């Protein structure tokens, strides 16, 4: 019955639409654009309102801000340290050198020949052969132990080939080269001046893993603390939520202020973390420079890079937002008019 009734109306509407197509279309457009701009305006309004609400009463939010800030500062400081150590290890990579000690009693001709063969290997930039006698002369000249050496019945030093790999040779290639060198019959031991560097690399790898583990744990802490703060904010506004739902507020509308609040908690916490990191850097920079100077190095502590700082802030805002989302989705459903 309603079908029958509707049809002529629809036909009429069609005709009208044809007649006034242009006007109708533009009216429609203005309508939806108006709606969209109202939606955008509400976002702006809520963003500003929630931020003002937080800033107006900073003491109430201070605890949350500080927890977020500290939770971000810890991995941030580690990140800064790691960045610096990588810069440090990069500098030393350049002076990597391999000492190939030959069997005792290897004569000079054999040694020179081996040095030339090694020189032709891929992954070798330069070799230098030092026979046992000149090694002893060197030692005598530099060590000041002349008298003691005279007591020895024979030369205690082996001949040695110094092998210089090219700059920035990948670690795996370097290890392959060492294996090759070890395989020569004349070779007694192969010593890398970079054994310590390898350890440093291992420490760096470990630190990176540590930052991840710590970062994930502290991210969880941020989720929990923001989530709990938002839970309290929801509890304080139960009446308002009921009324809003009663007069037709959608879930998105009800959620919006809480999500923005979470975002602001993350942002303010992130900015405070920047401040803490700058303070850390300022406190450590002097002593580190002093220590480096004692080791004859011009090393200086760099602050966290701008890119890393932005990532930290962004992560903080996303975590704050997620914490709010988690809390809101758990508690908002329970509040019905």
């Amino acid at each position, binding site marked *: *019955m*309603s079908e029958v009734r*509707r049809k002529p109306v629809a036909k009429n509407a069609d005709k009208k639409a044809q007649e006034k197509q242009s006007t109708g279309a533009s009216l429609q457009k203005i309508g939806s654009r*108006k*709606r969209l*701009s*109202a*939606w955008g*305006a*509400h976002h702006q309004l809520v963003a500003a309102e929630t931020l003002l609400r937080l800033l107006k009463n900073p003491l109430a939010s201070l605890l949350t801000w500080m927890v977020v800030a500290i939770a971000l500062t810890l991995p941030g400081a580690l990140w800064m340290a790691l960045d610096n150590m990588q810069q440090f290890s990069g500098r030393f990579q350049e002076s990597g050198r391999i000492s190939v000690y030959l069997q005792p009693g290897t004569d000079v001709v054999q040694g020179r020949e081996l040095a030339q063969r090694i020189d032709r290997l891929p992954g070798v930039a330069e070799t230098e052969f030092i026979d046992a006698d000149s090694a002893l002369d060197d030692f005598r000249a530099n060590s000041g132990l002349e008298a003691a050496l005279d007591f020895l019945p024979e030369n205690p030093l082996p001949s040695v080939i110094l092998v210089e790999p090219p700059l920035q040779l990948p670690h795996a290639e370097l290890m392959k080269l060492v294996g090759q060198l070890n395989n020569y019959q004349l070779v007694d031991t192969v010593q890398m001046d970079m054994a310590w560097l390898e350890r440093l690399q291992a420490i760096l790898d470990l630190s990176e893993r540590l930052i991840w583990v710590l970062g994930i744990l502290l991210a969880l802490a941020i989720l929990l603390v923001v989530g709990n703060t938002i839970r309290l904010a929801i509890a304080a506004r139960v*009446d*308002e939520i*009921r*009324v*809003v*739902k*009663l*007069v*037709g*507020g*959608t*879930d998105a*509308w009800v959620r919006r202020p809480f999500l923005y609040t979470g975002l602001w908690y993350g942002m303010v916490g992130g900015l405070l973390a920047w401040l803490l990191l700058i303070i850390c850097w300022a406190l450590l920079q002097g002593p580190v420079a002093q220590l480096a100077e004692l080791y004859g190095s011009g090393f200086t502590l760099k602050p966290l890079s701008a890119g890393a700082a932005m990532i930290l802030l962004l992560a903080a805002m996303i975590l704050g937002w997620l914490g709010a989302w988690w809390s809101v989705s758990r508690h908002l459903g329970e509040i*019905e*008019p």
Partner: protein
Amino acid sequence: MTQGNSNVMVRFDRVSKRYPGGKEALSGVSFDLHRGEFAFLTGHSGAGKSTLLKLMMLMERASRGQVFVDGLNLNRLRPSQVPYLRRKVGVVFQNHQLLFDRSVYDNVALPLQIAGYSPADAGRRVRAALDSVGLLGMEKRNPIELSGGEQQRVGIARAVVNKPPLLLADEPTGNLDPELSAEIMNLFMRFQQVGVSVLIATHDIALVERLGHRRLILDHGQLHEGDVIAGGQYV
């Protein structure tokens, strides 16, 4: 069923409601409320008046039967559509549910803000709504400073500001003296005159009889039309 009939604002079709673990609050209730119609819903305390109103807002869902509001089958309404149903229905409660952390103006403007009106449009409509309940000068006041009757009228302004086709009220005069009650009822009747369907739950029998409109009478969850039962024996 002819639920598409554009003349029907609300249709209850053999609706029952049983609360979890409770007895039946409504049993087999059927009635139509037409567009622009005004009706009272009366009955003893616990008869099911509030439950009936809540079903129309989907604050509760029917256990059996079907409820239609403005052609919408509420049984089939998805949760995401509920807010849009509620924008079509203005409600006034005895505990007026005003927010005391904001002005009268902001209380009344809330439904418009939610529906996405621009501040200028909203301003015009809020003032019109406040004017219609006689509170035009009180926009900036906090509702907590107002008398009970004035607060109730702010609640009514909020319920009608979005021009909903259906207006529901649950004991809107519960706390008010007879004079104020009559004033509030007059207000509701004026909305009916501009085409709004109005359903008012009340146990103020004297007032209802004096005003003489259609009466729906609930008795232990069962509905009777007032004009069928002479002498109001179910009251």
